[in-house]
């Protein structure tokens, strides 16, 4: 029994780390632009597919393929902001929701045109055999995933705390106009937020690629789950999103293991409703929440 529980915990943390990375992307964008990007899941898909092409297809060395994919996808995110978000004349939240949904359909369609309708797969980052821990198996890819997720979180944390650009970004997130008055180029900071957010999406796609089938429609559900994770932890907070992601992954894995696999997708949304009703700011209260 304990070894089963341990196994659930391992797979929960693995999935949780991926949700966490997606949630961080959501959170970053929300805190600096108050925008929920419904196309975020599609950037995860682009990340996974980019790796399929560059690493498995062109045979580039893994680190190079990794970096190129992240930069490429972030570039697409940058273009997306330039062409579809910036040009909106009336940035109402309903209008922005539909534009990002339109973008997600567009990107999914492009994914289908470029990579076809079939699923692709890539090998794990390193071919170590699974580690045996008290009877439970720990895949080497799981270690990579958790390590990369934590590394990204730490880098972002240092970036926001220690660098001037990071602080300027945070200032823009708190109040765009006030930041602009103190001489911060707030428009550039928003570009940067899009760049980072979609880049994080790509990272999530890259690390999940070896443990799932990659196809053009993989992004939607991942995006929504990442969103639930961000809400759970606290939209707009970095460590809140990480916490939310891990918590969601672990709850999901235990829910599936102990009750029924039909629960898998429902858990995320039940948690989402619960947190919205009980504590809409998330576990870590991030910003003032519009609720009376």
């Amino acid at each position, binding site marked *: 029994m304990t070894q089963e529980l341990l196994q659930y915990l391992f797979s929960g943390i693995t999935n949780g780390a991926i949700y966490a990375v997606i949630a961080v992307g959501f959170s970053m964008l929300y805190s600096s632009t108050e925008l929920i990007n419904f196309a975020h899941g599609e950037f995860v898909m682009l990340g996974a597919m980019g790796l399929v092409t560059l690493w498995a297809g062109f045979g580039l060395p893994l680190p190079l393929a990794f970096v190129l994919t992240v930069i490429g996808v972030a570039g697409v995110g940058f273009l997306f902001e330039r062409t579809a978000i910036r040009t*909106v004349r009336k940035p109402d939240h309903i209008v922005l929701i539909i534009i990002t949904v339109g973008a997600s359909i*567009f990107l999914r369609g492009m994914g289908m045109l470029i990579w076809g309708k079939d699923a692709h797969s890539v090998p794990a980052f390193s071919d170590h055999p699974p580690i045996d821990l008290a009877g439970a198996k720990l895949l080497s890819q799981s270690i990579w995933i958790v390590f990369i997720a934590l590394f990204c979180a730490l880098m972002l944390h240092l970036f926001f705390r220690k660098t001037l650009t990071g602080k300027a970004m945070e200032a823009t997130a708190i109040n765009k106009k006030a930041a602009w008055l103190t001489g911060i180029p707030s428009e550039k900071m928003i570009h940067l937020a899009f760049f980072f957010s979609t880049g994080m999406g790509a990272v999530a796609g890259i690390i999940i690629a070896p443990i799932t089938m990659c196809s053009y429609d993989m992004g939607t559900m991942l995006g929504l789950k990442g969103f639930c994770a961000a809400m759970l932890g606290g939209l707009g907070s970095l460590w809140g999103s990480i916490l939310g992601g891990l918590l969601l992954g672990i709850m999901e894995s235990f829910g599936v293991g102990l009750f029924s696999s039909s629960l898998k997708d429902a858990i995320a949304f039940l948690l989402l409703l619960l947190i919205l009703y009980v504590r809409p700011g998330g576990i870590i209260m991030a910003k003032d929440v519009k609720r009376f």
Partner: protein
Amino acid sequence: MTQDRIIYGIFFLVVTAIGLAVKNFFYLQLLTIIGINTLLALGLNMLMGYAGQISLGHAAFYGIGAYTTAIFTVNYNINPWIALPCAIFLAVLVALIVGLPTLKLTGYYLGMGTLGFGMIVHIVFREWSSLTGGASGFMGIPPLEIGPISFFPARNYFYLVWFTVLVSFVFCKRLIKSRMGRALRAIHDSENAAKAVGINTRNMKLEIFVFSAALSALSGFFYAHMVSFISPESFSFLVSVKIVTMVVIGGMASIWGSLLGASLLTMLPEWLHSFSDFEMVVYGLILMLVMIITPQGLTRGILDIYERSRTTKNKQ
């Protein structure tokens, strides 16, 4: 008022004429689907356009309507016309239970709450296979009939749906002009101001949410009896988004906008079939472009262009 009556009269005549003129079974069915989607868009427009409350989970009520009538008529052999009030009652009940806590949220948070609700209902349709048939769907839903009149021929069904649309239009138009309609618009503009002048905003929002759920359940009922086969994919998140898109593209707070939006978004995939693999790309592009160019929706956008051209003419 008289102007409205003339418009309803024209609408009635146009529907009758189309019903008589169109012989092709496929086109009649497509037109009927437009009618069903118009009912859906109308329901959501009352909530989104007039009261300003977004819902990203309306396909749930659509599905509740369809699945209730399917289960009642097939599993329990109940007459569809008795199943209809049951379906609407169930949707209303769910809307009350869900709406009470959810409608306290605003903005994106309301969108997310309704999204979560819609996903959960979709998962219930998919996973409760002993009742709903699961992912493979529910078959053999009987066609509608009243005494000797069968609605199985596509033309009769077309009339049934479109006259229901007409009645709903009249009803919604009256509702908007009533005290409640004014209160809803006040909530749309500023919830706090509405409260300050003595509007019970909580009840008002709940009532319109329930009304909109009931209209969605009605469209679900028509959909189920028309296609006789339903599956969870017809009530997924993407369908919820499609309903929102119909409302926004047609024009928020415009009853005729719902008709325009529903017609366009039902026809669009048919037109895009010729693009085959490019279908999704073109669909996404159109959505984005319409929102970027006319964020107020097409009805408003076209009116604006018309008015602008008239004022420039007057100046000359």
